[in-house]
């Protein structure tokens, strides 16, 4: 093998290595990371912190129960559902719904929500990403906590179901 042949061969190897590195970096880091599941978890935890602490309803939680559907979750829990002004988004990419069920006296459950209600009606489509071809779906989290209204004699005992959903299908998925 002459030195000229080796030189051409050397460039060929360099080309293969460079192409593979570029391809790997592009496929690994070129696409956006899908953090919507984490956003849903953080949102549900933020709401849980807002309504209950140490097994007792917070003042914000009590206000939600007092005011019912009129309660403003965003204001009470210091949340903002503003989103980037891209695609056809209109600050409608998030949804949170809280159901307060009084367990001892079995009163009618009280529902308070904020954000895009359509995400709740599409609940059956939650978390199906990767299951039906390349179609994209919202990420949702549904968890339950328990809380008491008073320290003394514990007062009323609530099961509080928190449902959160993050859409953002065009950008992050």
């Amino acid at each position, binding site marked *: 093998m002459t030195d000229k042949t080796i030189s051409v061969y050397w460039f060929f*190897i360099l080309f293969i290595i460079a192409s593979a590195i570029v391809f790997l970096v592009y496929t690994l*880091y070129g696409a956006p990371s899908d953090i919507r599941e984490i956003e849903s978890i953080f949102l549900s935890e933020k709401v*849980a912190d807002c309504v209950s602490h140490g*097994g007792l309803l917070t003042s914000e939680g009590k206000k939600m129960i007092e005011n019912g559907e009129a309660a403003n979750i965003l204001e009470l829990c210091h949340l903002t559902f503003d989103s980037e002004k891209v695609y056809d988004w209109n600050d409608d990419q998030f949804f949170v719904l809280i159901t307060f069920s009084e367990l001892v006296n079995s009163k009618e459950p009280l529902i308070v929500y904020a954000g895009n209600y359509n995400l709740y009606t599409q609940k059956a489509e939650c978390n199906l990403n990767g299951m039906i071809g390349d179609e994209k779906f919202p990420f949702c989290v549904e*968890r339950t906590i*328990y809380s008491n209204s008073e320290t003394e004699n514990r007062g009323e005992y609530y099961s509080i179901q928190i449902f959160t959903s993050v859409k953002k299908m065009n950008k992050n998925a």
Partner: protein
Amino acid sequence: MHKSKKAQISDTLSWMVATIIIVLILGVPVFLVKTDMINTHRVNFERVQDTIATKAISGYLLKSYEGLINFEENEKKLSSEEESGIESLLRSLCINGIEGWSLIFLFNEEAIYHKGFYKYSDVGYIVYGEDDWRNYFVSDTKKFDNNFYFDKGENKILFDFYTEGELIKG
């Protein structure tokens, strides 16, 4: 300077072997990425504590601890109300892909009560108590552990709630 034919063949062979090794090493990650065996678009999120479960358990214990703390005086039996409360608590903690939760009730470090609630299949769950829990084993190690300590006189009571992986019948 011209090399002998043998030397040329040896040179060429070592370059070819080197090329094959390089292509194989680079080809493995390319193959894994292309076949989606490595999901590059999803961020994995590992935590050591489930804060929502901690809140759920705190609220439940605050409501029920008098019944639970008198467990020993009541001949180590829970009332049916407390039993169903524990079941519904463990059931509610399983929502959203969490496979199962267990409660162990320790009285002065002796385990005297055990209740588990596990996802058994895609559609079914199984509840079991201290009599039959040894018939099952859990595939993964403990993920979250929530310990709640109570003192009653000289006795120490520990409620140990923890979550584990999928349940398999032994």
